[in-house]
């Protein structure tokens, strides 16, 4: 797995991970904005709630794929063991759990739909926290 990651990233696994984490974190913010429009909390002339919700679902699917690929690369290359005072694996694991629960609610448990706004905000915060714990040392 390490050799695959090395070859895919041309030996720059950390940099690629930081870029991918930044991409999904920024898309998470964009997703939140789309749903603010989707729920009708913000009315803009160029985007109605229905198309905003549709785009939210489409982009969300892509974000999940990129997140899973990044997770696989990260675990395959760096392993599962957390370094001392490194909160990144914990925050990332929490993000995956909440994300999986949110997808479950969206796809199958419609009766829990009232939880979606809270789950969305939690996912957004966890994406930002995951990004901060992985990218801050490199971008700071």
């Amino acid at each position, binding site marked *: 797995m390490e050799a695959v990651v090395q070859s895919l990233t041309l030996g*720059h*696994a*950390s*940099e690629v991970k*930081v*870029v991918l984490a*930044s*991409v999904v974190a*920024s*898309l998470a913010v*964009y997703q939140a904005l*789309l749903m603010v429009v989707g729920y009708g909390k913000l009315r803009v002339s*160029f*985007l*109605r709630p*229905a*198309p*905003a919700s*549709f*785009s939210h679902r*489409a*982009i969300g699917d892509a974000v999940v794929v990129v997140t899973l690929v990044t997770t696989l690369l990260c675990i395959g290359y*760096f*392993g599962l*063991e957390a*370094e001392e005072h490194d909160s990144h694996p914990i925050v990332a694991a929490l993000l995956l759990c909440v994300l999986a629960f949110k997808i479950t609610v969206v796809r199958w448990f419609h009766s829990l739909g009232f939880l979606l706004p809270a789950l969305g905000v939690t996912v957004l915060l966890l994406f930002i926290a995951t990004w901060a714990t992985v*990218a801050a*040392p*490199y*971008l700071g």
Partner: protein
Amino acid sequence: MAEDGQPSRSYAKQVLGSLLAGLGLVALVVLLVADRIGPTGVVSPARNERAEDIAERDAERREDRFERDDESGRGRDRDRD
């Protein structure tokens, strides 16, 4: 939606617009982040130093992991491979 139940042209345009905006955001973030941490250092020599720092940190982290693997016996499997 149009009367025949198909998405209207305006609906499709708005979906396409918001997807393209997302794509533009991705491109912008990739450019900004890659420019800041990229290893080429063509524009700013500071980027070379940053890339070296990252490579060093990476190497240390991987070394620590190998040591832990060796202690737990997994290193022997890697040697055998």
